[in-house]
Structures are given as structure tokens and as C-alpha cells.
């Protein structure tokens, strides 16, 4: 209690608040420090405002019509006093029943009451695609409800049986859902040796991003799992407890949840696929164990130096990122610093969340975009083709618009099929207190950002038209990208913290051509072709697409290679660089189709939904 107005008869007292440290506080999340607030004409923070009345409608939010909103994410308490309550969950797009249509897997969080058996746990959803624009949750029948505190998901056919399997990361023990080829799955994580069970349900690791990739070229998918923090349910990191200090529990001088700085970071794991349904942890031997205990979130196997071998990216929260270059001998070289990927261009560690990977300049080099915290810009890493990166965030036009947003899921997608990859970023704050502090200029629920590729190394923000998908405001986390309706347009599914999902259907009015490839490997190439790179030449440009598992934020996207073709009504050449070796060239007979291609056999079939509508 302060004294009354000093003077007169009342004495002043100048007490010291118990919770205030005498030493300067440090934010729990890395950022550049407070940045200028931006408001729209209605004085809404730009993160929730800045909408325009009219303009091109690119995406429409159709989650309710599609039947997705019967499910919702539940993660901890609304107050978000503990960091694990704010991380949210991922989403995967996979065709689990091999009917040719993408289904949706939504990971769910949990609550402390559910963890102690006081309430029923929230469950994950597996939305089966009904092929009519709607989806049905079949998670219970399929046996993939998880019922643990879920975070991430990666899709991969680890046993090469032609059916996609699911790896789900948890706050605690993870799941490996083996696809039984009959619409059901069986959790084989323990048997396979990838559960990462701590042996003590009270003291666990917060496992986050996962990615499949065949790092040793034996034709079998290996698995990487990132670790965030060690977490003790009996002693959670709350300010003022022995679990943490006060110093990392502040943001803009306000008390908020603690961490991740100041918390004990968890290591990462690389599991080698033994080919018999089991895996062996080779993290140390391979040199990717994260001995520094950085706070891992996004993870992705992808070839950044064009040597045909998958390298490994780990986006670390408030700590330097990892870029491990695959040496081809079962080990990796840590090139994080020399490559320029560890830190942003200022040499500063940032709160990395998601990873987008794509060749946005159409020069054959795989570029990267890491999302991160508010008061900081999302970082665009331009690849020189050798796996060395430059921070071109400002030059590319991405930096400034992203500063007030807390970015999570992200991905490159050619939303208008013009042959140039655009960039989509999902946002949502981690501190609910943002809504009580308008001076921050940022909201808890935030809108996504779509950047249009201007074909000159720069991007332009696509305006958020009132009522359209880009104006949808939510506490976004995981995001996956894919052609859910087999119409050649890439849609977006978002897993929101403590809310229903968002399905943004691509309704862009372009009439550009497109083509997709569903690849099937054999021999030294994993069956689902993860790690394969496809180059396509059409309309005078050569594009690149990579078959990836994982990435974005705790999510896994459509594995089919999608290319926008612009006005080009034919493809000059398709060159497939199969994972594990082998280059195959094709000339597809027509466009606007989804081709099935099997290694060594060329095109084995196609799907053309537009043909049925008489447009071809």
C-alpha cells in the first residue's frame, strides 16, 4: 500500500514490493525489446485489426461447415501461468486410408486435472475426409485419441508398407501410431523404442517437433524428436517457487509465466530405423543430441546444400537454432553458426517456433523462414545454394509486418498457382495479458499473415478482407498446408490454442494451371518418398519442391509435390531426384492433375477432380 498524498499530515511510505527483484529483470522469451505499437483506424492492435472492407478474397474460413468445430483444443488453464500451457499443438495432413483424399489429424493438449485423473482427458481428432467438403472425427475408432498432453505430430511410413504412420509428441511419453491398413492404428512406441518414457510420470520432458527422414540412405525413415524443457508436475515453473527465479518471468516489466529462459532445457533425439519395427537412439553418435539443452520446437529433415542427403534443422526457442549438415557417414556436422542459421542477422538468438522451407526465388536453393516472438521479426534465411544463409528479412519485406505478431506455424505455398511460392504465417500470443495492455499494440488472439511473392525476392502482405479467412483472429499454433479438396489449390488447417480449429479453404479467383505428384519410392528410397526433391520446368521457370515430414510448428503437411504453373498449359520437364539416389525425368501429358509416380516406373496413374466437372 502506498501512502496517501505526501505532505500535509499524512506520511509517505515507500515500500518495496515483495515480488520485485532488485536486479534487472530479463524476459523469459528472447526478443529485440519493446517495439513500436501499430494500431488500425479503429485503434485495434494491428495483430487483430488492420482489416480492409474490400479486396481479393483468397481464403475462406470453413471449419464449421466442414464439421471441424465440434472438436476443440484444450491446453491447461486460460490464465497460462505455466509455460507448457501456452505451447499449443500441431496438425497433420495425411491420407491415412489411402483413398486419395487428405485427412486431418489434430493433436490436443491436456490439463493438470486430466493428468491427475480428476477429469477426462481431451483427445486428439482424426478427421476423415468425406470427399464432399466435410470431415468426420474417427479418432476413437482409429485408436489415435492420444489422451496425453499432446504437442507435435509427424507423418511417415516408417515401415514402408505404403500406409502413413503417425508419431505424436507429448509432455511426457510419446506415441508411434502404426497404421494397421484398415482405418485403425496401434501405438507401438514402447516396442519400437521411441516412446521417450522418463520412467517417472511426474518428471517428464516436453517433447515438441518431430520429423521423419532417411538420414543414412538405407531406404528406411529415421526419426528425430526435439526436446523443449524438463518439467516437474510437482514443482512447475511458477514465479516465486524454487523451480525458477523471478528474473525470467517478466515481459515489458509485467509479471507473466516463466520461461523458457531460466528453465532446464531438454535434449533432442535421433532414432535410427532398424528395419524390424524398432529404432535405436543414435543422437550422441550422430552429433545431434543438443548437449546445450536448447529449447527445441520446430524440426525438419531437408536437404539444404543440394548434396542429395537430408540435413537437419531445429528451431530453438530463445536459444540458437541448429543446422546439422549430413556428412553421409551416419553423422552430422554442426554448421549452425557458420551457416548463419543459428542466430538472426543481428547475431541475436530469437524465440524460434516454426520452420518453413521452400525455394521462393526459383533458383533451386531451399530458403527458410523461422517464426518467432513479438517485438521481433520473423527471419527469412536466404540460401546461397551451399547451405549458407543470409538474413534478408527486411529486404524481402517480411520483417516489419511480423514484428508485433507471435508467429508459430508457417509454410511456403503457392496460393495463387502463379509458380512462385508465397508465405503463410499463423500467429497468436502466449501471454493472455496482452489484451489488458493496449499499449503493447498486440492482442492475444491474432490474425494470420499471407505474403504474396512478387517474383523479385520480395513479398507483399495480402490484405485481410473483413469476413474472409485472413481476418480470422485466433490464438494460432500448429499449421499444415495441403490440397484438401484435390482441386490444385493449397488450403491451410490451423490448430488453435484452447479453441476450435480453422480450415482456410483456398478460394483465390485465379485460373492458373497446376500439377501435383504423389511419389512412391522403393529400394533406397523410402516408400513415401520423404527426402525426394522434384524440379519442374514450365512457363520459363524451374521450380523446386521437396517431400518433407514435419516442419512448420509441431505439424506435418501434404507430402504431395504441388506446383503452380501460371498460364502454362503444359510442363516442359519434371526431374525427380529420389531420396537415396536416382534421377528420373518425366513429361506429364496434361496439367491440372494429381499424378501418381512410382520410382522407376514413371507415371502410374492420375486423379483429376476438375475433369469430372467437365472442365478438361
Amino acid at each position, binding site marked *: 500500500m502506498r501512502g496517501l498524498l505526501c*505532505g500535509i499530515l499524512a506520511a509517505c511510505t515507500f515500500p518495496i514490493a515483495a515480488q520485485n527483484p532488485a536486479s534487472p529483470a530479463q524476459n523469459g522469451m528472447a526478443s529485440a525489446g519493446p517495439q513500436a*505499437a501499430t494500431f488500425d483506424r479503429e485503434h485495434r492492435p494491428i495483430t487483430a485489426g488492420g482489416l480492409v472492407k474490400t479486396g481479393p478474397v483468397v481464403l475462406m474460413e470453413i471449419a464449421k461447415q466442414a464439421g471441424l468445430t465440434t472438436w476443440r483444443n484444450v491446453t491447461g488453464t486460460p490464465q497460462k501461468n505455466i509455460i507448457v500451457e501456452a505451447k499449443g499443438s500441431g496438425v497433420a495432413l495425411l491420407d491415412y486410408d489411402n483413398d486419395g483424399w487428405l485427412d486431418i489429424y489434430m493433436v490436443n493438449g491436456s490439463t493438470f486435472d486430466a493428468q491427475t485423473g480428476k477429469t477426462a482427458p481431451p483427445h486428439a481428432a482424426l478427421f476423415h475426409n468425406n470427399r464432399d467438403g466435410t470431415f468426420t472425427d474417427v479418432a476413437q475408432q482409429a485408436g489415435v485419441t492420444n489422451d496425453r498432453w499432446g504437442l507435435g505430430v509427424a507423418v511417415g511410413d516408417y515401415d514402408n508398407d505404403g500406409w502413413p504412420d503417425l508419431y505424436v509428441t507429448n509432455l511426457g511419453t510419446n506415441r508411434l501410431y502404426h497404421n494397421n491398413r484398415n482405418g485403425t492404428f496401434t501405438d507401438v512406441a514402447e516396442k519400437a523404442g521411441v516412446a521417450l518414457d522418463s520412467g517417472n510420470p511426474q518428471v517428464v520432458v516436453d517433447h515438441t517437433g518431430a520429423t521423419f527422414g532417411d538420414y543414412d540412405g538405407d531406404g528406411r525413415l529415421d526419426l528425430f524428436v526435439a526436446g523443449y524443457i524438463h518439467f516437474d508436475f510437482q514443482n512447475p515453473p511458477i514465479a516465486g517457487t524454487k523451480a525458477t527465479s523471478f528474473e525470467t518471468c517478466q515481459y515489458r516489466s509485467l509479471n507473466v509465466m516463466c520461461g523458457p529462459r531460466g528453465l*532446464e532445457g531438454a535434449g533432442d533425439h535421433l532414432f535410427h530405423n532398424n528395419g524390424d519395427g524398432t529404432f535405436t537412439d543414435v543422437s550422441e553418435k550422430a552429433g545431434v543430441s543438443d548437449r546445450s539443452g536448447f529449447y527445441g520446437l520446430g524440426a525438419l529433415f531437408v536437404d539444404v546444400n543440394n548434396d542429395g542427403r537430408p540435413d537437419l534443422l531445429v528451431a530453438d526457442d530463445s536459444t540458437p537454432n541448429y543446422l546439422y549438415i549430413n556428412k553421409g557417414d551416419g553423422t552430422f556436422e554442426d554448421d549452425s553458426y557458420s551457416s548463419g542459421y543459428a542466430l538472426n542477422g543481428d547475431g541475436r538468438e530469437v524465440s524460434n517456433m516454426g520452420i518453413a522451407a521452400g525455394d521462393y526465388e526459383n533458383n533451386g536453393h531451399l530458403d527458410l523462414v523461422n517464426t518467432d516472438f513479438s517485438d521481433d521479426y520473423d527471419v527469412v534465411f536466404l540460401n546461397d545454394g551451399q547451405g549458407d544463409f543470409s538474413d534478408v528479412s527486411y529486404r524481402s519485406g517480411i520483417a516489419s509486418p511480423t514484428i508485433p505478431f507471435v508467429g508459430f506455424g508457417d509454410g511456403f505455398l503457392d496460393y495463387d498457382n502463379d509458380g512462385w511460392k508465397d508465405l503463410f504465417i499463423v500467429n497468436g500470443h502466449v501471454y493472455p495479458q496482452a489484451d489488458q495492455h493496449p499499449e503493447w499494440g498486440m492482442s492475444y488472439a491474432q490474425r494470420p499473415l499471407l505474403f504474396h511473392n512478387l517474383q523479385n525476392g520480395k513479398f507483399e502482405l495480402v490484405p485481410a478482407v473483413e469476413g474472409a479467412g485472413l481476418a480470422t483472429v485466433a490464438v494460432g499454433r500448429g499449421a499444415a498446408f495441403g490440397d484438401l479438396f484435390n482441386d490444385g489449390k493449397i488450403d491451410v488447417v490451423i490448430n488453435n490454442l484452447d479453441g476450435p480449429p480453422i480450415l482456410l479453404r483456398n478460394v483465390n479467383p485465379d485460373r492458373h494451371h497446376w500439377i501435383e505428384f504423389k511419389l512412391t519410392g522403393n529400394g533406397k528410397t523410402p516408400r513415401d518418398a520423404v527426402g525426394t526433391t522434384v524440379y519442374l520446368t514450365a512457363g520459363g521457370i524451374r521450380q523446386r519442391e521437396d517431400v518433407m515430414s514435419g516442419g512448420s510448428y509441431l505439424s506435418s503437411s501434404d507430402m504431395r509435390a504441388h506446383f503452380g504453373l501460371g498460364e502454362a498449359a503444359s510442363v516442359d520437364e519434371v526431374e525427380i531426384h529420389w531420396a537415396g539416389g536416382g534421377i528420373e525425368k518425366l513429361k506429364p501429358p496434361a496439367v491440372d492433375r494429381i499424378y501418381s509416380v512410382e520410382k522407376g516406373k514413371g507415371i502410374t496413374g492420375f486423379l483429376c477432380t476438375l475433369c469430372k466437372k467437365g472442365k478438361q
Partner: protein
Amino acid sequence: MLVASAQNSQTQTPYDQAHAAFARGDYAQAADLYAQADAAHPGQSDALLFEGKSLANLGKFAEADAVLRRYAFRHPDSADAFFMLGFVLHREDKPADSLKEYTQAAKLATPKADDLRIVGLDYVLLNDYPDAIHWLEKATTFDPQNEQAWYSLGRCYYSQSRFKDAESSLQRALSLDPKDAKAVTNLALAYEMDNNLAEADRTYRSSIELAQADPHTDEWPFLNYASFLLENDRTAEALPLLRRAVVLNPRCADCHAKLGKALAATGNSQEAVTELTAAVALSPDDPKLHYALGHVYQSLGMRDKAKAELDLSAKLYGSRDAAGPQ
């Protein structure tokens, strides 16, 4: 006159001579004379109090602290002693102790605006900005002509991202002292944070004009404006300001670092190495600087040197076990 003066000083007591020295700002002599006066008649006057004030004016805060405590012990009803002790403790970077003394003082007399300003700054040192703002607002209410109180309040608003309020306070400070270069620079920063870039630019330029005319200026106006220009992709304009900043303060690591990065961005890698090397020498534990230097070496094809710097950067960022470096 000289004789008369000498005779006069012979007839004056050390206490009188101390007051005279204090009045003309000769605090060293005043402190000695006050000490003599108190030694001659212990506890019989306020000589110790003024000795403490003299020492504080000399920046000898620890000595002032000891003297003032002796005086306050003998004179527990002296508000002046406790106010002064609060000030001295603030300057000793002991904000909690300072607040205790101010609380004691306020039981005895009404604080003045300047006292409340120091109380506010104590809360700043304690990272308690809401209370800091509370007392600084009181200080400006008590004395709306207190330029320093307005300035401090503006700084606190700025720290709390209340940029409009910061602008108002700093404008008020400048209405009282238009030559306050710190207030001008901070006003420019507030405009910048408020996204009023044109006004920020104009105000930064004013801060540079003031700094150019001030033979005692420091590097901050130049560094702040240069940072603004770099943020706005005006590297060429930033370069001369940064060159001036490193001349004004060759020990400013941030100045060398920004100059080095600006030079690297404009393709002058060799000179960038010189500046970044200087920055690294001044701030060897900053991983960002080693990272920047490493990448400039890399661009020059000096792979061994690049590796050494990048490895050092990685080492400095360290690990994240709970007790590890943050």
C-alpha cells in the same frame, strides 16, 4: 581588501568559513572545514550534515553516507538528514535502503518534488515502474516547473511502452529547458516507437544540432540517430554519425559494432573487420559481436578466423541447463 579579507577569515570560525566555502561551491574545502567545526564542538551544530552534503556534491557518496548517518544518529528529528541520506543511498545504487530513509524523512517533513523524483528513480532501480511512475507523477504535480522530474517521468513512460505519455512528459521538460539534449533524444526515441517516423527524424536531427553545438556532448545522440537510420535502411546517412560516435567515445562497443555492420552492409568488409575487432575488444563477452565479425571474416574468405569467432559466439551463448548462462 585582501588584508581585510584575511583578517575577516581569521575572526571567522571554521563553521562560518565552511558555510562560505559551501556557498561558493568549494565543496572540498567546505567538507574539511565542516569536519573541523564538528570536531571542535561535537554535535553542537549541523556541521556534520553539511559535511555530508559537501561530500555528496563531491561525488564521495560512501563517505557522505557515513557522515550523514552519524549526524542522523545524533539528530533523529532532522528530516533534512534523512532526505539527504536517502539521496546519497540512491546514488550509491542502494534503492531499497534509500527508500527506507525517505520513508523516515517523510515522517518528519513533507518531501519536495526533487525528493519524490529520487524516490521514483529508486523504484526504477528496483524495476518497479508502476510505483516509479506514481511518485514521479506526484513530483510533477508538486512542482510543475521541475524539468528533471518531467524528464524522468518521460523515461519511465517510455520504458512502459506508454509512448504518447512519454512524448507529453518530454515535451513538457523541453518547454522548461529547450536545450536539454537528453530530453530531445528521448523524445525522438518516443516518436520512433510511436511510429511517428517523420517527427522522430526531425527531432533526432534537432538532437544532433544540439550535440554539435555542445563541446561536452557524448556519443548517444549520434548513436541513437544512426540506429534509427539503419532501421530505416538509410545506411549511407548513418555512416558519418557512427564515425563521429566512435571518435566521441572510442570505448563505445555498440558504436564500433554498428559502424562495423554498416560498413559490412555497404561492402567495405576490410574496414568492417577493424571496427568489429574494436567492438569485440571492448566487449569480449558479447556473442553477437563475435558472430558479426565471424561472418565478415567468412565473406573475406578467412575461414580460420571466421571459425574462431563463430565458435566463440557459440561458446558465449552457452547451454541451457537451469543453472547455465542465460
